[in-house]
Structure formats: C-alpha cells, structure tokens
C-alpha cells in the first residue's frame, strides 16, 4: 500500500504544473488566511512584549496605596525622603508623570503622550537607557529627551525642534532607546523644571527604585505599607506590567481569530473547489490506476497529500509575506492601565509562524478530504469513458 501511495502521490505532484491555475487558488486562498491571522496575532504579541520588556530585575515602583497607575498616584517630598533612606533601596528616583495631548502622526488627532520628570537618578535606576542621538537634557533647562518610539509615533519630536506642552516650550535635545520597552514611548524632562512649568509644586507621582540584590522584596513591601508615616505601596515592575497587556492582547486575539475563522471558511470552499476540479480533470487517469489494481486508499491519500502540499506552500507563502511586511512594523495604541500611548513592534514569532502553518495544513486537509473520497468512489467503468 505504501508503495502505491508513494507512486500515485509522486505522479500527482509531478503533474501539478499542468494544473497551475487552479492550484494557485488553494495556495493564495490559504496564504491570505495565514497572512491575516498571523499579522493580527503578531500585534498582540508585540504589544505584550513591549510592556513585559519594560520590567527590569530588582526594579520596583512606589505608588500611593490603593492606586494602580502612576497617573492616579502621588506622594510628597517627605514621603520620598523616608522611602529613599530605607534599608534595601540602592537608588531612588522621584518622578513626575504627566500626560499631554500631542497629535499622533498616523491619525493627526491628539493622543496621550507621557511626560516624565526626573533627576539624574532616573537614568541611574534605568541602566538599559542609551542616548542614541543628541544628548541628555541639562538640569534646570527646558530640554527634553524623547524615546525613539515617541519620535516615530508623535508629530514634532525631531532633534532640535521645539514642542509646546501645557503652555510651556521645550527643545528636543536627544533621543533614547531602552530595548523596545514601553519607556521608549515617553519623553523625559528635568524634574524641577517640569514641576515649575506644570504648576505641580513639590508634587511627585511615583518613585522608581533599584533594590539591593539581597533584599527580601515582600518584606520591604510589607514594611512600606505598614509604616504609619507613609500611605504608599511597593510593587516590582514585573508585577506592575504583568497584567497590563492582558485585556488589549485578548481583544486583538479575539478579533484576529474571528476574522481568521471566517476567512478560513472561505478558503476551505476555495480549496474544495480546487481539489474537486483537480480530481475531475484526472478522472480518466484515476480510473486507469484503479483498473490497474491500485486500491482506493492510495488514491484518497494521494489527493489529500496533494492538498496538504499546496496548503503548506500557501501557508509558508502567507507567513513569509507577513514576516517581510509586518515584522518590526511599529504601531501604537492606548494602554488602558497607564492611560497613555504605548508603541510596539509587530512581532512575527516562530510560535506564530507555527500556528499559521498548522492552520494551513488543517484547511488543506479539510479541502482535500471530500474530493479525495469522491475520487475513490468513482465507478471505474463510467470514469474510464471520461464522463
């Protein structure tokens, strides 16, 4: 039987070139499904990745107890001083977190950009920062360091240009990178200048702290929460960013799979069409094989294998197209948790490519099954007459 399957399949595949037109239908149909599915899912993966890579080992946030975002958090200098002197905290950076409406390049409409005020310690607690163009802002001046993703997503953040935030004017003196994390969607400025320009007095939104490696984080968090002088809590960045992408990623995934399923149904019809016509154009050939003593099973298997081969080709094609077009493509969306724009790169990962190929093979199998059964059921005598 295996020898028969091998023979017939080989023959089919050799003949594929003569059915190029109709075979391309299955290939393109499935390529389309895989491209759209993988493309949409890669958005969800990219968004999750941007938030997850933001967290850094041994780095934590200090927020007002009860608040779950830097936007709704707040503390004063006295609280900052107490926390920064606690045992186990290596570097502490008190920061101001403000949002401004700046036009987004993609839509031309205002979107939420994060302006983060910090002192030198802000860079110290973020060793992953590198200034890739221009220079760091100077303390005491209305200068601004913009994340590379913010530069790409928002209007007017090119080096040397002046931007208006909240009735104050700033000069862009540098661009920074943090390895693709959500920080790259922010702009950073000098803390005292920001506090003065935005009329925030000595107000701080939150703290970023680097912890000693030996510290017991849970114990330190308990100490801060229990301190009667403080109404604060400590969360590690890992904890803080972990859940943030979930909702949006789930929404994108649901959308992706829904569109994928509907398209897949259409592609199965197309595949069925192709395979039925492949079978019908080979009626005489199949009947001859049967007459020569080839069994029904090898015929069925050979048709299915042909469909699978075409589907696999389509799946790989779709995956390749989406990889070439969209991998690394940058988009941004509103992160509900921080109420600000977070830019992310579409991430066409090996896992997604695998999903795409599995879908392709599944569709190919469905598209091949019924025509294969029909081929095997052809009554030999009528089929030989070519009717």
């Amino acid at each position: 039987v295996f020898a028969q399957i091998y023979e017939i399949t080989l023959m089919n595949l050799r003949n594929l070139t003569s059915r190029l037109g109709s075979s391309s239908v299955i290939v393109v149909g499935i390529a389309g499904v895989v491209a759209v599915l993988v493309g949409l899912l890669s958005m969800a993966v990219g968004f999750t990745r941007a938030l997850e890579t933001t967290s850094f080992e041994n780095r934590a946030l200090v927020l007002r107890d009860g608040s779950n975002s830097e936007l709704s958090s707040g503390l004063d200098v006295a609280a900052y001083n107490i926390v920064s002197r606690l045992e186990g905290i290596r570097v502490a950076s008190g920061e101001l977190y403000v949002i401004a409406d700046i036009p987004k390049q993609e839509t031309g409409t205002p979107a939420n950009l994060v302006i983060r005020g910090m002192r030198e310690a802000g860079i110290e607690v973020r060793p992953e920062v590198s200034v890739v163009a221009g220079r760091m802002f100077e303390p005491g001046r209305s200068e601004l360091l913009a994340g590379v993703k913010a530069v790409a997503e928002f209007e007017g953040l090119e080096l040397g240009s002046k931007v208006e935030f909240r009735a104050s004017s700033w000069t862009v003196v540098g661009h920074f990178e943090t390895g693709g994390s959500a920080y790259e969607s922010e702009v950073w400025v000098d803390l005292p200048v920001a506090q003065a320009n935005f009329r925030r007095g000595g107000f701080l939104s939150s703290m970023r702290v680097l912890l000693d490696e030996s510290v017991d984080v849970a114990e330190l968090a308990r100490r801060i929460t229990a301190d009667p002088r403080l109404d604060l809590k400590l969360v590690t960045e890992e904890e803080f960013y972990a859940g943030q992408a979930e909702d949006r990623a789930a929404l994108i995934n649901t959308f992706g799979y829904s569109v994928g399923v509907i398209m897949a149904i259409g592609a199965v019809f197309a595949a069925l069409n192709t395979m039925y016509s492949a079978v019908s154009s080979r009626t005489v050939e199949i009947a001859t094989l049967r007459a020569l003593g080839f069994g029904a099973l090898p015929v069925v298997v050979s048709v299915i294998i042909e469909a699978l081969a075409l589907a696999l080709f389509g799946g790989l094609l779709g995956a390749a197209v989406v990889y070439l077009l969209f991998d690394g493509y940058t988009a941004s969306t509103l992160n509900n948790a921080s109420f600000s724009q977070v830019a992310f790169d579409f991430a066409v990962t090996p896992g997604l490519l695998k999903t795409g190929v599995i879908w392709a093979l599944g569709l190919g199998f469905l598209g091949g099954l019924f025509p294969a059964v029909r081929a095997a059921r052809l009554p030999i005598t009528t089929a030989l007459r070519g009717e």
Partner: protein
Amino acid sequence: VSLLGLMWANLFRKRTRTILTLLSITVAFLLYMLLQAVAAAFDSGGVNVVGVDRLITSPKYSIVDSLPVNQKQQILSIDGVVAVTQQQWFGGVYQDPKNFFPKYPVVPREFFSMYPEFRISEQQLAAFERSRTGAVAEQALAEQYGWKIGDVIPIQADIWPKDDGSRLWEFELVGTFVNEEQRSPQLMFQYDYFTEAVAEFGKDQVGWWTVRLDDPARASEVAAAIDATFENSLNPVRTATEDEFARQFAKQLGDIGFIASIIIAAVFFTIILLTGNTMTQALHERIPELAVLKTLGFSDRVVSAMVLGEAVVLCLLGSLAGIGLAYLVRSAIAPVLESFIGAFDFAPLSVIYALGLALLIGLVIGLMPALSARRLTIVDALRER
C-alpha cells in the same frame, strides 16, 4: 430559452463548483460588512450621537486634568449656551479590577435632561436627587451584577480617596436607567456627595462639561467663545462637538479603519483570483458549446455579454447572501459587542457599497473570459472537440 435562462443553466452545469464559488464570495462579503461595521464603530468612538446640539468642554492639555466647578456659571453666561452639566471620571474598582464599568459623579436632574436618550422614571430620578449617597445604574448592568434597589454597592477608589483617608465608597442603588440608543453600562452617583466626601485635591473639581446649545448651527462659534473665555486662566479648555470628541478619543486606540481596509483588500484579492480562475475554467470547458451558439446565429456581442453576465450574476448572488448573513450575524453578536465597542451597526451606505463592489468584481472577473469568448472563431472552436 431566454438569455438569462441560458446563463442560469450554464452557471449550474457544474453545481458543486458554482456553489463553492458562491459560498466563498458570500464569506468575503460577510467579512466585508462586519469589518466595515467594526471600523465605523471605532471611528465614531462607539457613540450614536443623538444631540447634535451638545458640546464637550474638556481641559485643554489633557483629559486627565480637572477643571474648577466655578467655570459653570461663566459657561452658562456665554451667548448660545442653554445648559451646562458636569461629569468626572471616578475610576475605582467594584470587587475585582476585571469588573470594569465607568462610574461618574453627576448632578442628577441636569444629567438626565442633558441626555434625554437616558430614560429613568420620574419617581426614581426624584429618589436619586433626594438621597445623598444614592446611585443609579444601567438596568442591564444592575442585572449583570444582581443589584436590587436598596442594595449597597461598594467601590474601592484608586484615584479619589476620601477626606478621612479611607478608600471605600458605598452607594445605595435607588434606580436604574436605559439608554435607548445603545448600551451604556455605567454607574452614576451624586456630584454633591462626591465633592463633599473626596480628599482635598478633588474637591470642587470636574472632569469635563457637557454644554447644550440653543442652535446646533452655531456650534463652532460657541465652542470658540468658550475656549476664548478660559484661554488665559489657570484652567484653559478645549471644546468640541460630542461627535468630534468621541472620534478623537477613539483614534487613540489606533487606526482601526486602516487595519480593516488591509484585511478587506486581502480578502477581495483572494476572491478575485479564485472566482476569476473558476470562470476561466468554466469557459474553457464550454468552448465547443459557445461555437455552437455562434453557429446558430448568436452574435459575438451576445455570446460575450452572456459570459460576462454569468460572472456578474455569480458575484451579485454571493454578495446578497453575504449581506443577508451579515445581518443575521449582527443580530446575534451585537448585544455582546455593544458593551465593548458601543454602537455596532451597518451604515445604510455600506450595503450599496457592497453591491457596487460585487458588480465591479463581477465585471473584472468576467472581462477576460468574455473577451476570449468574443474572439472565438467557430471553425477553431469546433475543431477542438
């Protein structure tokens, strides 16, 4: 046999092939309709704007800022303004962060007369006004969480702690409302209670103003006047129509319309290729027949029109089925979807676009086969048999 009858018979000579082609066209148009509706929902911010005579006045630099409540009288005194009411974003968590729904402090009677599409009984509205810690919820939301009139709904504040440092706010449900236009799963409570109980930094602060105009035609003039009034104050504002405001906010999610267009393009590219291929194949099998028709005296033009007509009929049938299916699917998923993205509806024009597109695709697909049918010479064609 009429020409149409002949076309029909031809289409169904290979029933499986035609039905499968038809089904893939149907699926393409189903997807087209649904994606259009999703894109439209996001572009409009999911708001079916009833009152074209309403403006939103929000803090100039960012919606996350607050405005002082004493702006109210100033806005009311601007020419063209007939009513003003405030809302504030409360945030907060009911039991679990996953139970998300907006919560707003409002001035009861002002709110319900500003938004007539929100329906509440007079009795319950009066009870809402009388009760200091009272709250009203959308009926479906109340049903979802099993709230009854008289129940106490605890909300843990994240933005607005109370004056006494506690974060627990408790509201007594005194009524429910429905929004006749679309689902609005939200909880509203007294602004007076909010501003009295909230910590110092939140007192007498509002998130944004809703302004009613006497004449919708003066919207941009009045909006400019409001903005000018506060331009040089500590709290400058930005005023837009409700519609614009919702659109701009929705754009923050990203260009959903653009993504939808890419998918639609991919789908139709596939469909054109698929159906075009099928039509060419069908024609190929029928070359001798067409030759016979020509021998019988059918003109070149009629024969090619027939071939073209087949493609168009196939596409139109498929699109009609797709549009019909889309309406069925919508009635099934709209109730679920509307609590996420607001109004989910097909624009009247999208049906016309879909049919136009079907016609266009039919013509594109039928063109090549029609041309070759026309060029067919009888002798050559008959010889092929």
